C-alpha cells in the first residue's frame, strides 16, 4: 500500500494521483510553511487528514485544530508576526466566524506571510448555504488565487505562499468543493528540509500594529497600495491564461471549475470562442481584460455563484468607453448552484443558440426513484434522544437545531429542530423564541464540539438575561459530522494528550443550577426529564450523552473489543405496529411490501438501542428469538 505520509515528505520530485486537498499539503511542505491552523469542516477536512498522515516527529510544521475559525486565524496571524510562514484553512462558512479578525489583516505588516485558504461550496453539498466568499476579499483588499484543478492547487499555493512572504501580507487561495476533492496526477517538485528560524521576529517598528482612530488611515493606504501592486503582478501572471482561437466576435471570461466545464462543452462547438481563464480573480488584470474586450464584439462572463467579475468587467468597459456587448447573468437561477458541464451547456445554448451541436438525449420513461436523504447512523445516540424528546413534547412546541450530525433530526419521522441558522446559534435563537411566549415550550439542541466553538456566548447570555428555555446538549464525545476530530472536552488535541475541559463543569461554573444528565439510550428517563424540565422556570440544561457509535465501533473493532449483539424481529410476536421501522426509524429495519419487518444484517451494528422501542417486545438479540420459540 502506498504511504501518504512518506509521499508528502519525499525529498525527490515525483508524480502521484491525489485530490486537491492532498496536493495542497505537499505544496505547504515544499514551501516550508511553519504554522497551520484550522477548525474542521467541508470541503477541506482532508487537508488535516493529509497532515495527520505525516508522523508527528517528521512533520515539518506545527498544526492545530483551534477551538473555532476566529481563534485559528489569530493563532496563524500571531505566528506570522514572528516571521513564520503561516496558513489558516476554512470550511465554506468558516470565514464568517473569523470575519472580525480577517478584515484587520490587510492593515498589518505580516512578516512571515499568511495564506488564507477558503473552501467554498457551490452547490451546497455539505453546507448551510453556498455563499461566495470572494466578496470577503474585496471587503478586506486581499488578493485571491482561484485554482481549477489539483495541479493548480499545488502550483498556486506555492506562488501565493511565496508572494505572501515577500510582500509581508495575507493572500487568499480560494478553493471550491470540486477543486478540493477532484483527483488527478500531479507532478510535484523536490523538498529539502531546512532548519527553522526560531528567533521571535515581531517588531513594532514594522507597524503600526494598533489601528486606533487616525492611525487607521496610513494603514489602510498601505493596504490599498499593496493591492494595486498585486494588480501589476496579476497583469503579467501566467495564472491568468488567454486561449486564442482567433475569434473576433466572441470571447468568454471565466475561472475555476466553470472553465473546466466550458472545456467539455466546447467539444460540441464548431466556431470556438476565445477564452480568458482568470487564476487571479482579485485584483483583476485591467489591461489584459481591456485588450480582450476591445478585440471581441461580445464577451460572456461565465461565473459561478455571484456576479462579481461581471460587475467589475462591466465597470471597466464603461470607464474605457468600450462598445463590447457584455453578457452575464440573466435570471435568478444563474446565481444558484454549481456550474457543471450541463449547466454551462445550457447557458451557452441560451446565449449563442447555434454554437453547440445537439447532445444525445435520453429516451425511456425515467421511472421514479425514492429520494435518499442522509440519516443518523444505526446506533446513533441522537436517534434515541430525538425519539425520546419527541414523545415528551406537544406538536405545537418549538425545537431549535444547531450545526452537527444532530441537524438531521429535522427529517421525518423525528422532525426535531425546526429552525437552523449556523454554529452555536440555537440557544440564543431559542431565547428569542421564548420572549412573550407562555404558550409553546421552546427546546434547543446543541452538539458538544459546537458548544466550545460558538455555543458558550449564547448560554452565558441565557444565564445573564434570565431567558426561559430548555437546552438539550447532545454530547457524543467528538466532532462527528466532519470526521471525528477531537474537541476541548475529549482530553486530546491533534498533537496528543491535553487537559480535558468537561462540558458539565463549564456549565456549573457559569452558575447554571438546573442541569440533568442522562445516557441518550435511556429513552424513557430522558423523555421524563424533558417533560419535567420544560415545565420549570428559567434556563434548564439536559445533557444527553452517548458516544458517536460510528467512531466507537470502529475503535473497538480495531482493538478487537467490540461486542455488538445484532437484533432480529421475532415474526411470531411482531404485530406490525412498525414502531421500529417508521417511528424509531433505525435504517437497519427494512419493510417488505406485505408489512413484514426484517433487520438488515449489513446495517445492524448490534447496539441494542431499539430493543426497548417495540410495544410487542418482538425485537430480540439475534438467535434469542428462536430460542424463545423453542422454549
Amino acid at each position: 500500500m502506498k504511504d501518504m505520509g512518506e509521499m508528502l515528505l519525499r525529498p525527490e520530485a515525483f508524480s502521484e494521483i491525489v485530490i486537491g486537498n492532498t496536493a495542497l499539503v505537499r505544496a505547504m511542505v515544499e514551501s516550508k510553511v511553519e504554522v497551520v491552523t484550522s477548525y474542521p469542516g467541508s470541503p477541506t477536512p482532508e487537508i488535516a487528514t493529509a497532515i495527520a498522515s505525516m508522523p508527528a516527529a517528521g512533520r515539518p510544521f506545527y498544526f492545530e485544530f483551534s477551538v473555532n475559525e476566529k481563534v485559528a486565524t489569530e493563532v496563524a496571524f500571531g505566528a506570522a508576526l514572528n516571521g513564520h510562514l503561516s496558513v489558516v484553512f476554512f470550511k465554506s462558512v468558516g470565514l464568517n466566524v473569523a470575519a472580525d479578525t480577517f478584515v484587520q489583516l490587510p492593515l498589518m505588516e505580516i512578516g512571515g506571510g499568511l495564506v488564507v485558504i477558503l473552501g467554498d461550496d457551490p452547490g451546497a453539498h455539505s453546507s448551510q448555504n453556498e455563499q461566495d466568499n470572494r466578496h470577503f476579499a474585496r471587503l478586506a483588499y486581499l488578493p485571491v488565487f482561484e485554482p481549477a484543478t489539483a495541479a493548480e492547487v499545488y502550483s498556486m499555493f506555492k506562488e501565493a505562499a511565496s508572494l505572501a512572504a515577500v510582500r509581508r501580507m495575507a493572500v487568499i487561495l480560494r478553493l471550491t468543493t470540486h477543486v478540493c476533492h477532484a483527483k488527478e496526477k500531479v507532478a510535484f517538485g523536490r523538498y529539502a528540509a531546512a532548519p527553522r528560524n526560531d528567533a521571535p521576529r515581531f517588531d513594532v517598528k514594522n507597524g503600526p500594529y494598533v489601528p486606533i482612530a487616525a492611525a487607521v488611515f496610513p494603514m489602510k493606504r498601505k493596504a490599498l497600495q499593496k493591492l494595486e501592486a498585486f494588480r501589476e503582478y496579476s497583469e503579467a501572471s501566467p495564472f491568468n491564461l488567454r486561449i486564442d482561437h482567433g475569434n473576433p466576435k466572441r470571447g468568454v471570461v471565466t475561472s475555476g471549475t466553470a472553465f473546466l466545464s466550458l472545456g467539455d462543452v466546447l467539444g460540441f462547438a464548431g466556431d470556438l470562442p476565445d477564452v480568458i481563464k482568470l487564476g487571479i480573480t482579485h485584483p483583476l488584470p485591467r489591461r489584459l481584460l481591456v485588450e480582450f474586450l476591445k478585440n471581441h464584439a461580445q464577451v460572456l462572463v461565465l461565473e459561478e455563484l455571484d456576479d462579481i467579475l461581471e460587475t467589475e468587467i462591466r465597470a471597466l468597459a464603461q470607464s474605457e468607453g468600450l462598445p463590447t456587448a457584455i453578457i452575464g447573468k440573466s435570471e435568478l437561477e444563474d446565481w444558484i448552484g454549481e456550474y457543471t458541464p450541463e449547466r454551462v451547456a445550457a447557458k451557452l445554448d441560451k446565449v449563442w443558440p447555434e454554437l453547440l451541436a445537439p447532445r444525445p438525449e435520453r429516451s425511456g420513461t425515467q421511472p421514479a426513484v425514492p429520494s435518499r436523504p442522509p440519516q443518523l447512523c444505526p446506533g446513533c445516540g441522537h436517534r434515541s434522544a430525538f425519539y425520546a424528546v419527541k414523545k415528551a413534547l406537544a406538536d405545537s412546541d418549538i425545537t431549535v437545531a444547531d450545526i452537527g450530525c444532530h441537524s438531521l433530526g429535522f427529517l421525518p419521522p423525528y422532525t426535531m429542530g425546526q429552525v437552523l441558522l449556523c454554529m452555536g446559534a440555537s440557544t440564543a435563537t431559542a431565547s428569542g423564541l421564548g420572549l412573550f411566549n407562555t404558550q409553546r415550550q421552546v427546546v434547543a439542541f446543541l452538539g458538544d464540539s459546537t458548544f466550545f466553538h460558538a455555543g458558550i456566548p449564547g448560554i452565558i447570555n441565557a444565564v445573564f438575561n434570565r431567558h426561559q428555555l430548555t437546552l438539550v446538549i447532545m454530547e457524543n464525545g467528538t466532532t462527528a459530522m466532519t470526521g471525528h476530530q477531537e474537541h476541548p472536552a475529549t482530553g486530546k488535541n491533534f498533537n496528543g494528550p491535553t487537559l480535558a475541559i468537561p462540558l458539565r463543569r463549564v456549565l456549573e461554573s457559569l452558575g447554571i443550577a438546573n442541569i440533568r444528565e442522562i445516557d441518550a439510550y435511556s429513552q424513557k428517563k430522558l423523555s421524563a426529564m424533558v417533560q419535567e424540565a420544560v415545565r420549570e422556570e428559567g434556563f434548564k440544561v439536559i445533557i444527553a450523552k452517548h458516544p458517536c457509535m460510528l467512531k466507537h465501533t470502529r475503535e473497538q473493532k480495531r482493538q478487537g473489543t467490540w461486542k455488538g449483539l445484532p437484533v432480529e424481529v421475532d415474526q411470531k410476536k411482531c404485530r406490525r405496529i412498525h414502531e421500529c421501522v417508521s417511528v424509531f426509524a433505525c435504517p437497519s429495519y427494512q419493510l417488505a411490501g406485505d408489512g413484514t419487518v426484517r433487520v438488515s444484517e449489513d446495517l445492524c451494528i448490534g447496539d441494542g438501542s431499539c430493543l426497548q422501542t417495540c410495544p410487542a417486545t418482538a425485537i430480540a438479540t439475534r438467535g434469542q428469538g428462536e430460542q424463545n420459540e423453542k422454549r
Partner: protein
Amino acid sequence: MKKDKFDIYLIGVGGQGIGLLSETLIRAADHAGLAVKGVDTHGLAQRGGMVVSHVRLGAGAHSPLVMAGQAEMVVALERHEALRGMNLYLRDGGTLVYYDTSWQPLNVRLKKDRPLEAAVISGECRVREIREVRVFQPGLEDPRMQNVAVLAEICRQKLVPGVNSGHVTAALNDLLAGPVLEKNLALFQKIIQGQK
C-alpha cells in the same frame, strides 16, 4: 462514438465503498497508461445518504464531473441507486453494472414510497438499449466486499476499454494492505477466473 473519453458515473449509499471502487478504477486506468481524472461528491453521505463518484478516462475530459446523460457506464452498488444513476447520467446504449442489494430509502420505510423491483430496471434498460450487468455474489462474508465483486465483474467482461485485471490488481495493491488486501484479491481472482 467519439473515443477521446470514456465517462463512468458511480453511485451507492454511504458505507458501501464507492470511494475505494472509484479510486481503484482511477489508479487502474493510470497503470494502463490512460489519462484519468475524477471526483467523489459525498456530501453528508457517511450518514446514509447517496455517495457519487465521477471517473473520466481519456485526454478529452476537462471537468472532473461527467455531463448528465453522457456517461458510457454507470456503476451502482445498490438497486435504487442503480436506477437513479441510470436515469440521470447514463447515455442510451451505455452499460449499467450494479450490485443487486437493497438499502431502503427513508420514505420506503415510512410507507410513503414503494420499494423498487429489479424488473423495473431491466425494463428501462431494454427500452434504452442499455447493457444490463447485474452482480450478486451469494455467501459474501463481508458486505463491504460487494464493491470488489462489481470491480471483478467489470474486468471479467472487459467493460472499461484498455483496463485489464492486471491494472486493477496493481491498483488494489496501491490502496490496501495486509489481510484486507488478501481477502479482496482472493474474491477478485475467484470471480475473474472462476467464470471465464
